[in-house]
């Protein structure tokens, strides 16, 4: 009984109320700006590190540091981001909105690492409990002052927010802005000002959550960022709108987590499972709660990349394989390794062209599929790299992709992105960092495949083989683009509502594209493993999946050539780190900044208004050719048999 009470207290006072603060911050940001801020965790983490800097390095008193961090520093970041980045997204499509805040997340993590005293692994980062963890007995139950402060902060914040939204003029105007932005603007309300206020409040709450939870866990940059991510499920209980339901969701999540910590056996497998609970909670909530109905889309007009013909793609592919064969002869040592890794990552990134570029389904877990591919190649391919291993890589990733797609059939847009993020983080915690799967040494040997008598284990031969696989996959994707499947995918991307009213079977299309894209990522993973000959948990971290998505968007997520460049850029990041030691994580900073810029050109560097495309546009329509290409002999009779009466 005592254990139950103490776990309940911890569930509410240590975890639940912190989740509540973080989740309420997400809700406030979303309701005021219409944007789900993936970066909120990173901003919270910034607030916590800033607090650490003030208290531990500058030796400021705790309360002053707390007030400065939570009421000045974090809200300022939020307000500036709203002003500089978010405001430009007002009329952007959902994908641009998702990408930009994901970019801010990557940028935040890289930025924190780049600050010398924060990112230095030699420096110990500890935020002590308030009042040195002293306890007090309340009604026979022992509580630390820290826990009392956490509960007080959460309840006070919830109360103040409720008062703000219900009683104040600004709060009421904010709600009006959420209901109908244009209408509210007509009444004199200024939507952007309230969005800015919302971002400031959201960031303030996130930093408070991070500062209060920091003493309970090992303080590291990614870990603190994940505190807010863990609270996504609670925000979903409130459907990103209701603060009371969000609070309730947070308490339920906190209790679940605390009971699991206390009651589940302590073996390695179980402790991994406990870490995954917030993500499972998020997935469950999204599957159980009713989804918003299909709304008519608001897509920004963008110039789509030209559709490449089969001869063109074959010629370009042959040229690429030839070039790689020549270049491979001149590469040695690390450079050869970078090139191999780049081509493999390029194959993984091709999976995004199909899924996100064409199908509009934002996935944040493609590297998890790649990791499954590498795992299958290692276990089934054996030390000689049998072809069965490659098939297993494709099959395992495809099968898991189909499973992940099941919730995706119900979810759209933001919710789908969140579901894939939850899957990626769960895979990090439960699969990749698990000795049962990756062994005590945390790495797996992955052999390079043998195709019949053809041994691909040599570095240069393997590189040419990778290029060939890349070309085959790219040519297939471009062929799919020209096919009925490709048209359906783009139709699904551009207007799900119109698809519905045409009777298009979206379920089958979504399932097919998810499975195929996961299988491609799995194949890329097998190559990735082969390129490095061994893989470990760090290769497939969720944050790298985000980086891949950003790189794809930056280069043009509907272009296959862009994925090659993206893959190579990704593989070259260690080279950048080697030569550019300051700032640390320069690669993350670069990718993040570039992706933030993408809101101005959603089709990416090579996707939209390239000079070639604009020149083609100036040539005017080529209709006669198109119609001639259909069937010159057939009568073009609009009546046909279409109106059946």
């Amino acid at each position, binding site marked *: 009984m005592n254990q139950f009470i103490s776990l309940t207290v911890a569930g509410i006072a240590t975890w639940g109320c912190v989740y509540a603060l973080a989740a309420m911050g997400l809700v406030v940001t979303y309701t005021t700006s219409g944007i789900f801020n993936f970066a909120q965790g990173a901003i919270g983490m910034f607030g916590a590190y800033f607090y650490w800097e003030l208290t531990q390095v500058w030796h400021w008193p705790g309360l002053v540091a707390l007030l400065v961090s939570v009421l000045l520093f974090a809200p300022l970041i939020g307000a500036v981001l709203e002003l500089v980045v978010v405001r430009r997204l007002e009329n952007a499509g959902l994908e641009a909105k998702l990408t930009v805040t994901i970019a801010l997340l990557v940028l935040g993590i890289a930025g924190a690492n780049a600050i010398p005293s924060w990112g230095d692994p030699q420096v110990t980062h500890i935020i002590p409990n308030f009042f040195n963890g002293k306890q007090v007995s309340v009604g026979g139950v022992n509580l630390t002052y820290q826990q009392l402060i956490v509960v007080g902060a959460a309840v006070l914040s919830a109360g103040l927010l409720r008062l703000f939204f219900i009683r104040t003029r600004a709060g009421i105007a904010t709600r009006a802005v959420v209901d109908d932005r244009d209408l509210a603007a007509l009444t004199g309300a200024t939507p952007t000002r309230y969005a800015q206020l919302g971002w400031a409040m959201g960031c303030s709450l996130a930093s408070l959550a991070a500062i209060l939870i920091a003493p309970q866990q090992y303080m590291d940059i990614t870990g603190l960022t994940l505190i807010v991510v863990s609270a996504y499920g609670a925000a979903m209980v409130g459907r990103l709108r209701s603060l009371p339901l969000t609070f309730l969701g947070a308490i339920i999540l906190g209790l679940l987590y605390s009971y699991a910590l206390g009651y589940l056996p302590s073996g390695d497998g179980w402790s991994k499972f406990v870490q995954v609970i917030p993500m499972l909670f998020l997935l469950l909530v999204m599957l159980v709660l009713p989804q918003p*109905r*299909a709304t*008519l*889309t608001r*897509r920004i*007009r*963008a*110039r*789509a990349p030209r559709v490449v013909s089969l001869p063109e793609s074959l010629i370009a592919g042959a040229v690429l394989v030839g070039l790689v064969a020549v270049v491979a002869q001149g590469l040695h040592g690390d450079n050869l390794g970078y090139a191999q890794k780049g081509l493999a990552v390029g194959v993984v990134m091709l999976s995004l062209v199909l899924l996100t570029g064409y199908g509009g389904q934002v996935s944040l877990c493609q590297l998890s599929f790649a990791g499954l591919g590498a795992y299958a190649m290692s276990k089934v391919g054996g030390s000689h790299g049998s072809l069965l291993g490659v098939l297993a890589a494709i099959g395992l990733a495809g099968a898991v992709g189909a499973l992940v797609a099941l919730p995706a059939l119900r979810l759209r847009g933001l919710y789908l992105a969140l579901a894939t993020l939850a899957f990626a983080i769960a895979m990090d915690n439960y699969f990749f960092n698990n000795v049962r799967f990756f062994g005590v040494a945390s790495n797996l040997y992955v052999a390079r495949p043998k195709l019949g008598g053809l041994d691909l284990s040599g570095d240069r031969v393997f590189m040419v083989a990778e290029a060939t696989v890349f070309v085959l996959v790219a040519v297939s994707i471009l062929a799919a683009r020209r096919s*009925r499947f490709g*048209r*359906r995918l*783009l*139709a699904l*991307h*551009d*207007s799900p*509502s*119109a*698809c*519905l*009213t*045409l*009777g*298009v*079977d*979206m379920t089958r299309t979504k399932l097919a594209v998810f499975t195929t894209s996961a299988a491609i990522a799995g194949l890329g993973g097998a190559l990735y493993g082969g390129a490095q000959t061994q893989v470990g948990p760090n290769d497939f971290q969720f944050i790298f999946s985000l980086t891949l998505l950003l790189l794809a968007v930056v280069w043009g997520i509907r272009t296959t050539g862009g994925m090659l460049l993206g893959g190579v850029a990704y593989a070259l990041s260690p080279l950048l780190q080697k030569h550019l030691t300051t700032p640390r994580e320069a690669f993350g900073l670069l990718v993040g900044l570039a992706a933030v810029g993408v809101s101005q050109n959603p089709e990416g560097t090579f996707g939209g208004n390239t000079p070639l495309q604009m020149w083609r546009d100036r040539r005017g*329509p*080529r*209709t006669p*050719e*198109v*119609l001639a290409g*259909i*069937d010159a002999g*057939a009568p*073009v*009779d*609009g*009546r*046909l*048999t*279409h*109106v*059946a*009466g």
Partner: protein
Amino acid sequence: MLRVEEVTVAFGGVRALVDVSLDVVPGQITGLIGPNGAGKTTLFNVVTGLQKPVRGRVMLGGVDVTGKGPKDRARMGLGRTFQRLEVFGSLTTLDNVLVGVENTGVHGQAARRAAAGLLDRVGIAHVADRQADVLPTGLARLLELARALACQPKLLLLDEPFSGLDSAESARLGDLLEELAADGLAVLLVEHDMEMVMRLCRTIYVLSFGSLIASGMPDEIKANPDVQSAYLGAPVATGAGA
């Protein structure tokens, strides 16, 4: 073909439609008019299944489809166009129509022929290979019509198809709609161009603030004082619109 029975839709406390009933019969163009915000597009969304009514039912060809989703209704022969354009922007004009044609089980060259034929029929064959996103609004509306026809509908809901067209294009579209009705199609037309509505429709329903305030033949509607006042006193037949 279509019967809407006492449909009510509420958004929070606001009732967008109140006990609306109407009939759309094959071989005729039926008009649905009313000022902006009267609930016309909401009614379209209810009929297509994108919006659930809190009360009432929707019958399609004698079958109650209230509980069915948009996909099933489309497969029962319901096609529509949208007031706020919903073209597949990154596809070409021809490919937009192909998506519809291919969904009926026609593939390959036959599908392309059918799609090209439909573009020709609505008069936009000259932009067949243009990306739909860059089409002017009027042509994009015609594209939505061609795409809807590609699914071989028995009932067609058109949401302001004439807006954005010049007078020659409008006249041509008017003729086309009459042809379609003569072929046996049931058409429900939402339109602000009163002249066109009066010319094409045999029956007209008038919505105002979510309620039906009148229904009847064009002459009856023109003479109806409630309709006149709903249109701010403007004489209906002049085509002043709302």
